[in-house]
């Protein structure tokens, strides 16, 4: 088990800056995710930690020792690839024994450790299978067993679920997380899927254009995104253009296309300045008037109602803009028709004024 410290890490590909000055410390036993769209530098960062890409600018420390000059084979890191990289010419047993044989352990020790690893990932009985004879999920388990059996200091996972189908992905998500917490191994997980990151991580770094946009727990990232990129990338948000009408210590009043709305205050906002209000669709209630302190509540015309299974999505006209509301699909819910008007309400501090 180990902690990992990235300091002022950058990576150029030719003139392209793939990773831009990243500094972060990952705690011992932590499940840490790098989350971002493709090309944001998350995989490059992971591959630099593993030693597959050279570190030219900045440093990578594991347990306080700079490893940036070490070869991959010297780093004692477990890496699970997106395509699992099971050696096709070896059976499962030999795949898992590969790292142990390099360490020149006795045949007995290798055998007992391989069998223990197979049991740990629930693949006992698959010793003689080859890569072509296994499903994606099974290969995934073998790939994990192959790295865990060598007792690496840290575990790096590069989009390990993206090649699986949806149901299996859900299952593996919880399985990997459980395995990780029972082993207590420091894990860095790269994904573009916010659902995976939110479900599995202790902390998440949201990356964009080579930089870390925000670091925090899943809850902090989801509830308190600090900028427009994170707001839009994590979950869905209404992004409403507004003008600041009044500011007080406790909150502010915004004018959204003529509709006055109250929102929590943000440092540095000035009256009559243009700003943006972000609001999660699931925070908007539909059909009931909330005549309470600290709530916004008004009637808006419905443009569209979409049935989406677990929830129903409403599209309202808010001046020239649109307001989306997502309501849990209950049997007793009202489903007003498009063209009519309905009450929308949200707690004013669930809205968020964000920087561009």
């Amino acid at each position: 088990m180990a902690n990992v410290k990235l300091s002022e890490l950058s990576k150029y590909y030719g003139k392209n800056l793939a990773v831009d000055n990243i500094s972060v410390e990952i705690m011992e036993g932590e499940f840490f995710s790098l989350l971002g769209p493709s090309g944001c530098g998350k995989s490059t960062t992971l591959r630099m930690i593993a030693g597959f890409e050279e570190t030219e600018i900045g440093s990578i420390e594991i347990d306080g020792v700079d490893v940036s000059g070490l070869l991959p084979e010297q780093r004692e890191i477990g890496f699970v690839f997106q395509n699992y990289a099971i050696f096709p010419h070896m059976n499962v047993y030999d795949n898992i024994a590969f790292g142990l044989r390099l360490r020149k352990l006795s045949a007995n020790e290798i055998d007992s450790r391989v069998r223990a690893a197979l049991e740990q990932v629930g693949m006992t009985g698959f010793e003689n299978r080859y890569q072509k004879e296994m499903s994606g999920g099974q290969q995934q388990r073998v790939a994990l067993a192959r790295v865990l059996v060598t007792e690496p200091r840290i575990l790096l996972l590069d989009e390990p679920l993206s090649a699986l189908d949806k149901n299996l992905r859900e299952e593996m998500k919880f399985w990997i997380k459980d395995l990780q917490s029972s082993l207590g191994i420091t894990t860095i997980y790269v994904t573009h899927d916010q659902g995976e990151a939110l479900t599995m991580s202790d902390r998440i770094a949201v990356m964009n254009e080579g930089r870390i946009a925000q670091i925090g727990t899943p809850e902090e990232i989801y509830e308190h995104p600090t900028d427009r990129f994170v707001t839009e990338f994590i979950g869905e948000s209404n992004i409403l253009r507004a003008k600041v009408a009044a500011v007080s210590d406790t909150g502010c009043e915004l004018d959204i296309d003529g509709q006055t709305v109250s929102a929590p205050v943000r440092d540095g906002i000035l009256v009559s300045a243009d700003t943006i209000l972000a609001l999660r669709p699931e925070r908007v209630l539909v059909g009931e008037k909330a005549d309470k302190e600290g709530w916004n509540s008004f009637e808006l015309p419905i443009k569209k109602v979409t049935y989406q299974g677990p929830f129903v999505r409403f599209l309202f006209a808010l001046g020239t803009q649109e307001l989306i509301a997502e309501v849990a699909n209950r049997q007793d819910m009202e489903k007003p028709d498009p063209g009519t008007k309905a009450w929308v309400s949200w707690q004013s501090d669930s809205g968020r004024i964000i920087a561009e």
Partner: protein
Amino acid sequence: MATNPTPARRKRREAAVPLVIRSLAGLTLLILLAPMVIVILAGLNSGDHLSFPPEGLSFRWIIAFLNSDIFLPAYGFSLVVALITMVFSTILGTTISIFLVRTRFVGREFMRAFFMSPLMLPGIVLGLALYLFYISSGIGLIRTIPGLIVGHILVTCPYVIGTVSAALVGFDTSLEEAARSLGAGRLQTFRKITLPVIAPGIVAGSVFSFIVSFGQFDVSLFLTPPNSTPLPMALYISLRYTFEPTAAAAGIFAIFLVVVSMLITAKLTNLKRLANVNFS
């Protein structure tokens, strides 16, 4: 209600490959096989002259081949040259492929074309060029066995480069990274991961180079040492003056050698596949 299975059902029975293509394939196969059948029958002829159809079947000319002081040594010489050529071509072709596939530099495509050019050049031109080069450079390779083998390597190497490059292009480099990360050094990774995975490409390339070298005529024409004659040349020389069925008998042995080497490759690759299935 009457069931009418005709139109829809009949369509299902349609062959995966249309009849035209199947007939063309069959015809091609026939054209390719016919000469071989003719050579084999001619070699088993009991008559005195090379003729087809044979006058009767006998092992007369097979025995003559085995006792011949021209064809048998020529056969052995070609075999040795082909084996040495195969070893060098395989090693050189594999390293060249790795270099060409794995490195990025300006002029890489030009270099690949350059390495493959012996395939495009007529053998006679290549042979003549090498001959002139040996003479003018005075490096002592004129009409020597090493000089001949160098020529054969030039001609056969592109086959290895072709098959090994194809294997390398499809090779997933994350396999190597996985091995490195598990603690294997560069050379260990190459030996234990890269080499076994691209092995079918290497084997295919070496079998090609063996067969091409064994049947090589035009390059050999210029480079063959005075006292040893490769089989294709021995056949040609013999048929210019006599019309003996021994040549056809030698042909039988040449065909046999090629078929055996093909079978060995097929067996090697098949065994691997069989192993994969059997242990499951």
